[in-house]
């Protein structure tokens, strides 16, 4: 049978439920700017109706709890894009520092190569002119210095990246530890059937931070998430986290080891660490190798040209450049071997006035070196190489930023807090609360009426 008291208890339930919903809304509004926060929706449920003869009276509604509005697929795509962006940005940062050394325009290698050939051409008009000879030697010296400078810049950049690697690995270990701590907490809440939204938000944010540092892959298990990097190197399994380590490799570059001491450097391809390792292990060595090859072959070509002629005193030409026997390190260590300008083997017939052998030197400028290009074309290729690496990193960074923006829009569309929406909800729950309160007042009045039935006051 319907009763005033049951109506009152329905109203009281409604007041409770609406207070809860207001609190959830309030929490959403408070966390509108919390990174990684997922908006929560109050879950109202109709209470089982009370049967009364042929009638079923509704028993009102209760607040069952709240539900976090999540999209795990979007989360994981954001993770992937964040890895790609971290890698691109790390590469771009170094390449932008390297770039200017290749085209400083006054002292770069390209300018010094053409200055050396110009000085040789100038010497051909007057092979006995000692200042022209001196000019060739100093142009050679400048070229060697340009090679040394660029090579040293690259090497010191390469070494400086070690600091970045150490920091990245420390952060990865730190984040892994925090993720591992959350795993049993989330599992515990899930076991008791509670919403794990808040802790999951924290964990998702930590995984995202981790994605900015390295390539991670996340799998759900009953014990919480398992996080791996590289090709399956575990970082977090259940409540356990596994720390990465860095050790100096043979070349002085830091190598990354997993918890078993196996070298996993090559498998780390994403995030800041991936990009930094890519720059340190691939990009810079590639550029150094191009420079070393050019320095070695150009130096050797000059030495061969020297050997084909005679110096100012009629003696067979000696080496112009000191070139190491191995290609590696040639750009760093190339230097001018000749100390006396008279040692330039300009002569083809042994007389001091002959410039016949200078044609052999001039030919180096136009003939392909063993690497398949003329020295200037080879250097232009290196410039192209540097430029396009930086350009690609830039393009990758821009593209991932745009893509991340899209994905974040989508995620925000699903999980983000809209102040306007929450304000509307606030009005809805406020109105509902007011209505429930009015019900209480009304029932109270009805009780009064009932109490006064048959008394004087009723008349």
């Amino acid at each position, binding site marked *: 049978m319907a009763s005033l008291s049951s109506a009152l208890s329905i109203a009281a339930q409604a007041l409770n439920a609406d207070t809860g919903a207001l609190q959830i809304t309030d929490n959403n509004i408070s966390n*509108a700017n919390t990174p990684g926060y997922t*908006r929560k929706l109050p879950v109202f449920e109709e209470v089982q109706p009370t049967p009364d003869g042929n009638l079923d009276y509704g028993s009102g509604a209760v607040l069952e709890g709240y539900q976090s509005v999540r999209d795990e697929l979007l989360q994981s795509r954001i993770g992937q894009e964040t890895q790609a962006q971290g890698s691109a940005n790390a590469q771009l940062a170094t*390449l*932008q520092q390297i*770039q*200017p050394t290749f*085209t400083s325009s006054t002292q770069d290698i*390209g*300018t010094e*190569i*053409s200055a050396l*050939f*110009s000085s040789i*051409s*100038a010497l*051909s*008009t*007057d*092979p006995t*002119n000692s200042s022209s000879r001196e000019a060739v030697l100093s142009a050679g010296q400048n070229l060697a210095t340009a090679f040394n400078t660029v090579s040293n810049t690259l090497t010191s950049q390469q070494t400086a990246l070690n600091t970045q690697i150490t920091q990245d690995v420390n952060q990865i270990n730190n984040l892994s530890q925090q993720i591992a701590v959350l795993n049993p907490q989330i599992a515990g809440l899930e076991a008791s059937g509670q919403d794990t939204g808040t802790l999951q938000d924290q964990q998702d944010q930590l995984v995202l931070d981790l994605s900015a540092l390295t390539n991670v892959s996340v799998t759900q298990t009953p014990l919480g998430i398992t996080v791996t990097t590289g090709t399956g190197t575990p970082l977090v399994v259940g409540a356990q986290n596994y720390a990465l380590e860095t050790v100096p490799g043979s070349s002085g570059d830091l190598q990354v080891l997993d918890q078993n001491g196996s070298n996993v450097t090559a498998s780390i391809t994403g995030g800041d660490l991936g990009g930094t390792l890519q720059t340190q292990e691939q990009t810079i060595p590639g550029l150094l190798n191009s420079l070393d090859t050019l320095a070695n072959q150009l130096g050797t070509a000059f030495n061969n040209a020297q050997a084909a002629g005679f110096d100012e005193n*009629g*003696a*067979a030409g000696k080496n112009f450049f000191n070139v190491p026997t191995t290609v590696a390190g040639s750009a760093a260590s190339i230097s001018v071997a000749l100390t006396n300008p008279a040692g330039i083997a300009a*002569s*083809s*017939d*042994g*007389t*001091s*006035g*002959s*410039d*016949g052998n200078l*044609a052999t030197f*001039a030919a180096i400028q136009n003939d392909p070196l063993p690497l398949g290009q003329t020295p*200037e*074309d080879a250097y*232009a*290729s290196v*410039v*192209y190489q*540097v*430029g*396009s*690496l*930086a*350009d690609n990193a830039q393009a990758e960074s821009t593209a991932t*930023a745009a893509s991340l*923006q899209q994905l974040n*829009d989508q995620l*925000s*569309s699903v*999980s983000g*807090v*809209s*102040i*306007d929406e929450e*304000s*509307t909800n606030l*009005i809805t729950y406020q109105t509902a609360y007011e209505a429930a309160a009015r019900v209480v007042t009304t029932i109270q009045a009805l009780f009064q009426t009932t109490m006064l039935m048959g008394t004087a006051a009723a008349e």
Partner: protein
Amino acid sequence: MRVADLVPDAEYSIQQSEQTLAAALKQVSTGLRVNQPSDDPAAAANYVTSLAASANVDQYTKNITALTSQLQTADSALGSVVTSLNTAISLGYQGGTGTASTSDRQAIANQVQGVLNNVVAQANTSYQGAYVFGGSDTSTAPVVEAATAYTTAATVQPPLTATQPLTPGSITTVTDATTGKTFIFTVTPGETISDLSAAVANAAANGTLSAGTTATLNANNQLVFTSGSSQGIVVASNDPVLGAITAVSGSQVANSYAYVGNGNVNNVQVGDSLQVSGNLPGDQIFTSGTNVIGALTGLINALQTGTSTQIQNATAAVSSALAGVSQQRVPLDNTISQLNSQESYLGQESVTLSTNQNSLVDADLAVAATNLAQAETQNSAVLAAAARVLPQTLLDYLPPA
């Protein structure tokens, strides 16, 4: 789509718009479209090769300037030789008339002697310390008075012996004024003074040197080169074992000259595929071929001892030498005018290259300025839109509670 928050989108748009604005501003303020290789890797690479080509063109232009002066020096020396030969010819005509007395002829011979000295001086013209008619051997005067005997110094230590090893790689030359040829002895390891003597005898036997030319050690341990011909020889060596080799005092042969330069030319690059020779070997002009010195010596001898006919013949020989010199000047003049036209070509080339460089890396200012204006407009629009939209919430419209 549900939109939760406009701030991230607005931030992103502002960022994008400001990047575009910064790029446009950089282009306008630097005037460059390519500030670093990553702005346009292909253009940056082409710029490197184009700069190298420009450096070559600049150097070719400088080479032309240097060569032109050098060749003009040679040309004006030959011009002076032509004037001298004309003088010698008119002197020859005076001396060749039947009315000229012996003493007149002697006086004329003396004047021709002066002409010869002038021609020898022209043959030894140098430009900035380099002899222009010596072939690639620019460091020694190419035309040298010959002597019948040359000797090493008496003070050479240790005293020379037949078995004395010479310095490997050193070169000793004997130039014969009669044959006009030069015998060159390059020492190979183990060769001694007796090998040198044998080689000289061999050269005298095969005709490089006049028959009877020898190089022998005398009682004072001096190596003495003796000419087999009355015209004499010129000897030079850079071997420190032999030391300085000088003409024996009094053995110089008057009016007999040998060419000690070589026949090699120095080629200088003045274009990517254009080389010109920067000097002129003088042997074909002065001592053989046209043989200006020979013709003048002949005229002097004819004036001193010859008949009118002989003087007339000698004068005719000087005339043909004059024609020869004029002919030799033609390629020289051609080279000079070739250099002039190459210089103006290089001037154009330099302009073409710098235009090319500009188009590779320079910003088109009209385009850059337009881009900047567009970027500015877009940036203001983005900022204005953000300013209008972001502060708006439903709360603005709700009555105060």
